[in-house]
């Protein structure tokens, strides 16, 4: 496998890995209402870069699933659509957080044993 093939494969796999956590990351930032641009900044400040082309469709999907509520706010310099967790979204977020913590615990264990194994070899 040459370098380009490796990098293509690797990029695909990282994207897949990231896609899984984006929902949780987005929900975690919406306990208070935010508009898209502010949400992107707030995620970026904490180290998670998310593409606009990914975020907006994701927000709409979460809203159609009833996890988010949105409303246009026309008070600022221009109208902005604000998103916030719905009561259902808040419940789902709590449950997902618990799952995430248990999953990271499991993954840490797995990865640790895998790297120990590598050292022994």
């Amino acid at each position, binding site marked *: 496998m040459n370098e380009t093939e490796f990098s293509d494969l690797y990029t695909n796999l990282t994207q897949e890995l990231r896609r899984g956590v984006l929902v949780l990351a987005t929900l975690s930032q919406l306990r208070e209402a935010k508009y898209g641009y502010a949400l992107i900044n707030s995620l970026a400040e904490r180290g998670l870069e998310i593409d606009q082309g990914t975020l907006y*469709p994701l927000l709409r999907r979460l809203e159609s699933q009833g996890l988010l509520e949105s409303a246009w706010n026309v008070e600022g310099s221009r109208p902005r659509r604000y998103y916030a967790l719905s009561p259902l979204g808040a419940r789902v977020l709590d449950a997902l957080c618990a799952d995430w913590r248990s999953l990271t615990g499991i993954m840490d264990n797995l990865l640790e044993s895998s790297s120990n194994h590598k050292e022994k070899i």
Partner: protein
Amino acid sequence: MNLIDRYLHEVGRYLPRKNRADILAELRSTLIDTLEGRIQGPASGASEEDVAALLKEFGPPQKVAASYSGQGQYLVGPALYPLFRLIAGIVLASVVGAQLLALVVLDLVGGQPIQPWETLAKVLNSIPAAIGWLVITFAILQWFDVRPELDEGPWDPRSLPEVKETETVKRGECIFGIVGGTLLLAFLNFFPERVGFFSFPGGPFFANPVIVQYLTWINLALLAGIALNIYLLWRSRWTTAGRLARIVVNVISIFVLALLFQGHNAWLAEHGAGNFLSSVEMFSADPAANAGLVGMQAFRLAFGIALLVLIIDTAAQIFRLVRSVLIGGPTPETLEA
């Protein structure tokens, strides 16, 4: 700003009508927010380069619009596709089968002789038309987001069909088919004048004029049969492609057999012996002159029986194909002829 308007207009062209205005308003507000964040000032102060760079980052309008369409845009989506495939198979088999059947019936009952090329053209033309209507129908279902109700009752692994030998191709049959087909092909083409029968042991030889007349078609059917057997031998398992190929070869053979049957009919009618009894009468009245009649009757009967057997076999093959596509697994032995 003009660039942003043009960009949004273009994105809007690809968005579903339902949410278009809403998505565009949000996209506009985001673009301007991002722009202002970048130039640290009001958007009116942005240069065309700033806007162009931002839009380039957002991506081509079509791609941006596509990202809003969720699971992608389909003419026939994944939820409908298995049903589409199943129905396409049934429709194709019925369209082609019905035409051939109508033709054979018209020929036998209505006395309209089969025109090989016209028939082929008609059948070939009817396929795209049938598929076209099917796609249009499914595209409408897709448009209204109809999802077929799948039978999702409790599933018992013990209900899985058993894997039977029927899945494997019988090698002996294939080899017999190849050898027999080749010998017949060689005989028919090298000794066309020897294709016929002796009216009685030691009697004069009577060459069959009808077989020689349709030799090209017979060659085609035999070659197709040999090719099919080689393919099956090579694959050694029954696949959807293999079953489909067998159906196609069978249809060709049915067609050629119908031609031969009709040819014998015409020949016998021409010689005043349309039915079996009249040939026997004519034969007993003057055995020497009418020796050919009984032989030709026998040929006609043989072709008729072969035709019937092949039609039944083809129906069974179509049934198996549909079944294997539907179930996606091997067919039970009970279906094997």
